[in-house]
């Protein structure tokens, strides 16, 4: 049985001691309570008696060495039964307590879904209470940003948020349609006629957004045609040079964006939002381009598009679309939009009736470009590339006249494009 000789703690503030003199040699027998060595501390010099009889088999700390209280100085080996060596090390007595407690943090899946999409706004402060209510009521941060605040410095208070939510529910139909799609299907079915999976977060988010958008905005969709012939020819002509120069393909998209941004500048009511009773005329055009992915739609936003030239828009659009497909968009890049372009024409659709991306008031869908036989102004016939274009707008704010002016502006811009600005 090995018994440790330890440096004793002889006073409250004594933290260490020095081995002054070993009174026994290695191999010497010691009797119980016989002094084995002398130590000295700040407060007192004294001897250390053996706890049990045996042989001093090891001297671990040499004379003149200072060690901390509790350190092992030497070993006495006894034969025979076990001797209890209590070293007062309370940690040893209770090994379970040494492990620090495992802290269980329960994370709400829902919370992650929403908060990973949108981080706290840099500009506005939301109190813990407001954030909690927003989270529980599925009010995205984007939406929070649009709520009018009556607190200090325009802070959104609890009552502001609750008021906003009340307005949302009031505007829904009288039969209290729930958000998202927790509307149950009325058709019973058994499991061998269908496979069932739960919607993932992205899907749920989209579903919720679509229902809400339709509930909030009275949608009107107006359709017009654009003669894209010149533009299509131009593109054909320059596309190789463009690819060589820029490193990516020139599509019709930047033309659309450029035309629309200019039209928005001329028709600012389309680049606005409604906040309760307030009309919010955005100072910038933050242009959203809808990108279809397998999972669903994502709308990256070109911030301050009005300040970009064609090439800037082209590059930006390409970059965002690429990263959208690679799922590498940052959260900043999918918020703050003031108008959205969607392109169902890419898949051959003639025209669509798109749903407004809240809190915007307009969304433009470009259809497929089709070669048609057209009757021209001078009443000759020609084969032209024609595209249908549909604008859904929020009739709370936008009337037919505004909408018409806007689409006319877009049409003009596309039919008579200023190719010089491209610089090719």
């Amino acid at each position, binding site marked *: 049985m090995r018994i440790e000789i330890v440096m004793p703690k002889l006073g409250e503030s004594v933290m260490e001691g020095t081995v002054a003199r070993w009174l026994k040699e290695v191999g010497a027998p010691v009797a119980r309570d016989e002094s084995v060595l002398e130590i000295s501390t700040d407060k007192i010099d004294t001897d250390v008696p053996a706890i049990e009889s045996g042989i001093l088999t090891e001297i671990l700390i040499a004379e003149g060495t200072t060690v901390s209280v509790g350190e092992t100085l030497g070993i006495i080996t006894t034969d025979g039964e076990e001797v209890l060596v209590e070293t007062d090390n309370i940690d040893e007595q209770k090994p379970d307590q040494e492990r620090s407690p495992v802290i269980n943090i329960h994370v709400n899946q829902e919370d992650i879904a929403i908060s990973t999409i949108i981080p706290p706004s840099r500009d506005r402060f939301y109190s813990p209470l*407001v954030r909690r209510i927003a989270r529980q009521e599925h009010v995205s941060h984007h939406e929070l940003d649009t709520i009018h605040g009556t607190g200090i410095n325009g802070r959104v208070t609890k009552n502001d948020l609750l008021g906003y939510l009340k307005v949302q529910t009031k505007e829904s139909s009288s039969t209290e349609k729930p958000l998202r799609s927790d509307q149950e299907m009325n058709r019973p079915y058994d499991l061998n006629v269908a496979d069932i999976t739960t919607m993932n977060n992205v899907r749920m988010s989209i579903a919720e957004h679509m229902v809400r958008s339709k509930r909030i905005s009275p949608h009107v969709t107006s359709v017009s045609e654009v003669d894209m012939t010149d533009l299509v020819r131009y593109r054909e002509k320059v596309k190789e040079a463009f690819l060589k120069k820029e490193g990516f393909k020139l599509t019709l998209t930047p033309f659309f964006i450029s035309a629309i941004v200019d039209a928005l500048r001329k028709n600012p009511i389309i680049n606005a939002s409604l906040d309760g009773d307030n009309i919010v005329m955005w100072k910038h055009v933050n242009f959203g381009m809808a990108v279809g992915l397998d999972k669903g739609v994502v709308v990256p936003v070109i911030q301050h598009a009005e300040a970009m030239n064609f090439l800037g828009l082209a590059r930006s659009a390409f970059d965002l679309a690429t990263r959208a497909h690679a799922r590498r968009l940052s959260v900043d890049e999918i918020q703050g939009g003031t108008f959205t372009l969607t392109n169902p024409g890419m898949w051959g659709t003639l025209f669509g009736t798109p749903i407004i991306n809240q809190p915007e008031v307009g969304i433009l869908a470009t259809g497929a470009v089709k070669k048609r036989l057209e009757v021209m102004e001078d009443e000759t016939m020609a084969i032209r590339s024609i595209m249908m274009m549909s604008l859904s707008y929020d009739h709370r704010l936008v009337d037919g006249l505004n909408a018409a002016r806007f689409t006319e502006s877009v049409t003009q811009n596309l039919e008579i494009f200023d190719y010089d600005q491209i610089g090719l």
Partner: protein
Amino acid sequence: MIKSTYLEAITSGLREEMVRDENVFCLGEDIGAYGGAFKVTQGLLDEFGEDRVMDTPLAESAIIGAAMGAALMGMRPVAEMQFADFITTGFNQLVNNAAKTYYRWGAKVPMVVRCPSGLLPNAGPFHAQNPEAWFFRVPGLKIVAPSTPYDAKGLLKAAIRDNNPVLYFEHKDLYRDKAISQELPSDDFIVPIGEAFIRRPGVDITIISYGKMVHKSLEAAELLSEDGIEVEVLDLRSLLPFDKNMILESVKKTSRLLIVHEDTLTGGIGGEMAAIIADEAFEFLDAPIRRVAAIDTPIPFSSPLESYFLPNTEKIVIALRDLAAY
């Protein structure tokens, strides 16, 4: 039902407990023939004799220590500090002896120390303090601070019947305040230690307060009501232990909290409560937790200094309005 002032409620509470239990006795300076500096014990000497209404030498440490010794023996002493300010000369007996005895070696110390506390006009630095914060952090002590005659009587009885050392802070300026007199039941009643009370229900802001400041808070709440802001006033009544659940419930309802106490700001018990609520009700707060308290100075004597020092209805109203607008 008997109409009582705050002071009369204390006297009758003492008296009833002394009748009910022969182990209850009073000790303190000038409490016998003189009836106490504030006349709380007036008449008790005649009724119970000098063994049970004992005039002691001027020796707070001995008073409190002897109370502990008598309590160990199974008596229920009610010691009086002539002014709460003088409790510091018996601090060690309370904090190191009485408070730690049951924990250390299992002997009960059923004693009460009555402390007339709080500001009387121009009482100055040594006759007006609210010392509860010194004791709030001593496990083993209990602390109560009634604001109404009903609570004064009920809490005193509860304190006397409690098997732990209890500090009983009676606010001197409430003693004879006719405005708060109440009809008290003539049969036995107690107010349990550890329970708060909603003096005024509201929805917009919660005030937590105790002692005389409860009444100032109620005045302020009335004024805010004229502006359509309904303030809930929660009277703590017990400071240690305090009614955390009721506080949390109220804050969850109103989401704005103002703590009001007559004690000075820094190190006053309001800070500890604010920390607990910020921790446990963080997601229910729509505004920062604020406090209205006395300024961090010794208590000045001259009237203009004193009124600058003290919290009052006006200061509470300003704080409430700020909170409401946040």
